């Protein structure tokens, strides 16, 4: 119970930071919107846009997540707050889960308008339900947030961290992009073969593995003096 309360306190702090500096979130939104626009122009023609809608959403989210992860750790190292947190009586696991959860929420806050924008610009079909789409978006954002938080924590300790972050992050989330894009496509275009479950299961397994394992690695690297 105490652990959960502390996790929520960390989440609250993160979201409060986003709230007090709205330029961070709007920056992400503008970034992903511009990316969606650019991607449409990089396609061979308007007729393929409905087919690549899911890909546009997830590409936008992955690229936006590198920015948001970088930002979320920059506030922590700015005045030594991360070290302060480690010295505060709060377990490192709590810090990790709080930050990862907050990052997932921020990503979802980007994902919803981004999906709406893709609907407007790319005209994908919509066969599945909005609930299904929501589940896929949530699982996908969580699957980006947990390893992303760990990798950002690793990268901030090195020189040139914002350049290092994608180098470590992109290979790690290949399965997320794959599974989330497949699942989203199946939700959008209809799923006659009933395959969406397999992809969602893959996302779920990825989520479970990273939300448990990465916390241990995180505590190992931040609390070692």
């Amino acid at each position: 119970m105490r652990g959960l309360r502390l996790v929520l306190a960390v989440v609250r702090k993160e979201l409060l930071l986003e709230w007090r500096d709205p330029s961070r979130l709007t920056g992400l939104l503008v970034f992903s919107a511009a990316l969606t626009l650019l991607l449409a122009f990089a396609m061979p023609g308007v007729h393929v846009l409905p087919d690549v809608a899911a890909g546009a959403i997830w590409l936008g989210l992955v690229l936006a997540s590198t920015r948001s992860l970088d930002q979320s750790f920059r506030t922590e190292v700015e005045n030594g707050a991360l070290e302060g947190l480690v010295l505060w009586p709060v377990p490192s696991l709590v810090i990790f889960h709080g930050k990862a959860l907050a990052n997932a929420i921020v990503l979802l806050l980007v994902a919803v308008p981004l999906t709406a924008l893709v609907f407007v610009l790319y005209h994908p079909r919509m066969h599945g339900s909005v609930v299904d789409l929501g589940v896929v978006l949530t699982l996908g954002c969580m699957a980006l947030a947990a390893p992303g938080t760990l990798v950002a924590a690793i990268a901030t300790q090195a020189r040139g961290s914002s350049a290092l972050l994608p180098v470590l992050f992109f290979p790690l989330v290949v399965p997320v992009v794959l599974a989330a894009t497949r699942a989203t496509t199946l939700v959008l275009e209809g799923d006659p073969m009933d395959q969406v479950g397999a992809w969602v299961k893959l996302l779920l397994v990825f989520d479970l593995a990273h939300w448990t394992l990465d916390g241990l690695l995180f505590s190992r690297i931040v609390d070692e003096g």
Partner: protein
Amino acid sequence: MSGLRAHELSRRFGNRWVLVRVDLEVPAGEGLLLLGPNGSGKTTLLRCLATALKPHHGTATFEGTDLWAARHALRDRIALLSHATRLYEDLSAAQNLSCWAAMGDYRPDVPALLHRVGLDGTGSKPVRAFSAGMRRRLALALALVKQPRLVLFDEPFSALDPQGREVVGGVLDELRGQGATLVLSTHHASLGARFCTRAVRLEAGRIAWTGPAAEARDVVADA
């Protein structure tokens, strides 16, 4: 009851020893003045005592328990104040305090704390707009959230005007009155001597001199 003890405490960064076999003893409820030029290892010593750094040799104990081994339990009672203020720039003073308190499961009286360090009325201005002195005061309030038993204070009087020094001095007196153990690192022996009984002078990571805090002034003046 024994307070803070260090035995042959040593720490290196890379291949450079910055702290060499430091022996300390601070009885519970007393203050130690930590003197020494820049780069003499004062900050590293404080960070080791705060369990931010693992010593590479030797041990440090607080109230009989090993600092590093029992760090998760002891961090509840140790406060480190340094130039790293731990503040979130975009939050207001009150939000900083309440967020940090919530993350440690503390329930402090935030307005009273802000009043204690003379920051009431700063409103909802983000810390970004604060002066260096105001940040120091807010960082002090943040440390008080813990109600610490061991206070490690790096340069308590830097970046402060006379009024700020007054505030910090008042808080330090109050902490000593509550039985907290203090370690103050400073260039200004005269300012710190008021709160401390003993003084130690570090040079090149080693203890070069130790004696009553009242005599410390001369040592600094000579150097």
